[in-house]
């Protein structure tokens, strides 16, 4: 949300931004958790994570063109993203199961190029608009502040998704197995947990979560484009690093912190300075990486 603002500090503006940040943070958290899940299991940063958002969004777009309603398309989108994630794991990453961090990063970079290229080629290089249910544009006013429906949805979606994920991870046998694998992959295997199954499931979940985020992004943006996956990837990456790479809770935390920082900056900085927002966030990322403990990024078994 952009508004005209003066350079003077406006408490009202700040509070509005913070309210927005809850919704924005929810979206960021959804994006970040998927990336963190894969990292915690495989020690890899999946550069193609953003493309799962692209897959989900395009699914909605294509189905809409075929006359399917947005909401049904949204459900299909979640499935598509989950399947796409499993496909990328099975086809591109499994042959590299024990490869180095750099190799996996590169491979995922390549995968992101492939996905982007596919949409570029088979759909269009240009952005396409998606007609989004009117509800996404509504907002309610509370005490002079605006709460966009989209942010309400985001917060709701995040709560539901994260709640279900927590239930799964903590209560179900497969979930506990996955948690165990994320904490000590090799020993989990020695306990009879099937590596391939756990990894495929983690990717599937990361896909579905990215899909949920995609629907929210689509609701705000109203369009799809082949390169739309890059920003979500960047957001997920920044959020994860802020929260501590590999930790699921950290990913959620990082997502909200990032959103709140952005909100605060939006409230205080003149618009011209805002353009540097990303640069600022990434400078923080570099600082965090600089102070990162040795081996944080080479160990595959951080605790959740």
């Amino acid at each position, binding site marked *: 949300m952009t508004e005209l603002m003066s350079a003077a500090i406006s408490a009202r503006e700040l509070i509005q931004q913070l309210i927005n940040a809850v919704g924005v943070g929810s979206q960021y958290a959804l994006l970040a958790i998927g990336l963190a899940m894969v990292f915690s299991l495989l020690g890899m940063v999946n550069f193609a994570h953003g493309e799962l958002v692209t897959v989900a969004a395009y699914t909605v777009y294509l189905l809409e063109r075929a006359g399917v309603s947005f909401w049904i398309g949204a459900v299909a989108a979640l499935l598509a993203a989950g399947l796409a994630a499993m496909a990328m794991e099975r086809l591109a990453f499994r042959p590299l199961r024990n490869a180095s961090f750099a190799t996996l990063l590169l491979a995922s970079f390549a995968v992101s190029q492939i996905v982007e290229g596919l949409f570029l080629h088979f759909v269009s290089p240009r952005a396409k608009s998606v007609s989004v249910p009117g509800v996404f544009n509504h907002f309610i006013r509370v005490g002079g502040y605006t709460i966009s429906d989209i942010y309400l949805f985001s917060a709701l979606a995040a709560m539901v998704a994260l709640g279900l994920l927590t239930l799964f991870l903590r209560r179900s046998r497969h979930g506990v197995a996955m948690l*165990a694998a994320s904490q000590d992959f090799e*020993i989990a295997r*020695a*306990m009879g947990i099937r*590596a391939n199954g756990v990894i495929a499931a983690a990717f599937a979940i990361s896909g579905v979560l990215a899909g949920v985020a995609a629907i929210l992004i689509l609701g705000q943006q109203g369009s799809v484009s082949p390169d739309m996956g890059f920003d979500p990837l960047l957001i997920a990456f920044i959020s994860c690093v802020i929260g501590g790479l590999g930790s699921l809770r950290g990913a959620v935390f990082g997502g909200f912190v990032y959103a709140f920082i952005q909100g605060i900056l939006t409230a205080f900085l003149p618009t011209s300075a805002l353009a540097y927002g990303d640069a600022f966030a990434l400078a923080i990322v570099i600082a965090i990486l600089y102070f990162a403990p040795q081996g944080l990024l080479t160990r595959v078994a951080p*605790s959740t």
Partner: protein
Amino acid sequence: MAKLLEISLTVRYGPIVAVRELSLEVEEGEIVALLGPNGAGKSSTLAGIAGLVRPIEGSVRFAGEEIGGLSPEAINRRGIALSPEGRRVFPGLSVEDNLRVGGRDRGRLAIAASRATVLDKFPALARCLQKPAGALSGGQQQMLAIGRAMMSDPKLLLLDEPSLGLAPAIVDEIFALIAELRDQGVTILLVEQNANRALGIADRGYVLATGSLQDSGPARQILESKVERSYLAMEGA
């Protein structure tokens, strides 16, 4: 007694040979101790058997079947369970969940039965079921590691340095438990630096140094052999 495990194993890490053509047998119902100084290749042997280091050279025959080269999951499902060096319990999971994971995907009744047995054996664990494993003491973690391994009702239990870093009193407790396990029919391959203790409960022993077998025989024989005693630095150990 039937031979449960027969290995003739070489384990390499790149150019380094950690275990060189080690031949070793474990019969059903016995405790076999694998001893030797630091760096002798004992843990690498267990890692090779458990499938954590691959590929290996040579053969690992378990209950008549060649399992060399199988994945760790597959080996576990055939009835070999591991209590790793350093315990390596899942730190963020509760004791209860750690045990659950050990139970794999066995049926509810089977898991419940194993769980009851384990908690009976290790009452200390029963007292802290909801505690995150990372917060347990060394001794408790060791019990958990063994208990977790037992949850899959294994035919062969691989124990890697259970006494490491533990106070003597706890070590006593744990070794007594290990002996009890054997008495209840579990076959155990025990890797230990504390040769005294290990030989105290073992039936037979193998002595390893720099990857190669130095000696083997009944536990008592190794215990009493002067050469071995110096190897294993057992004076006052």
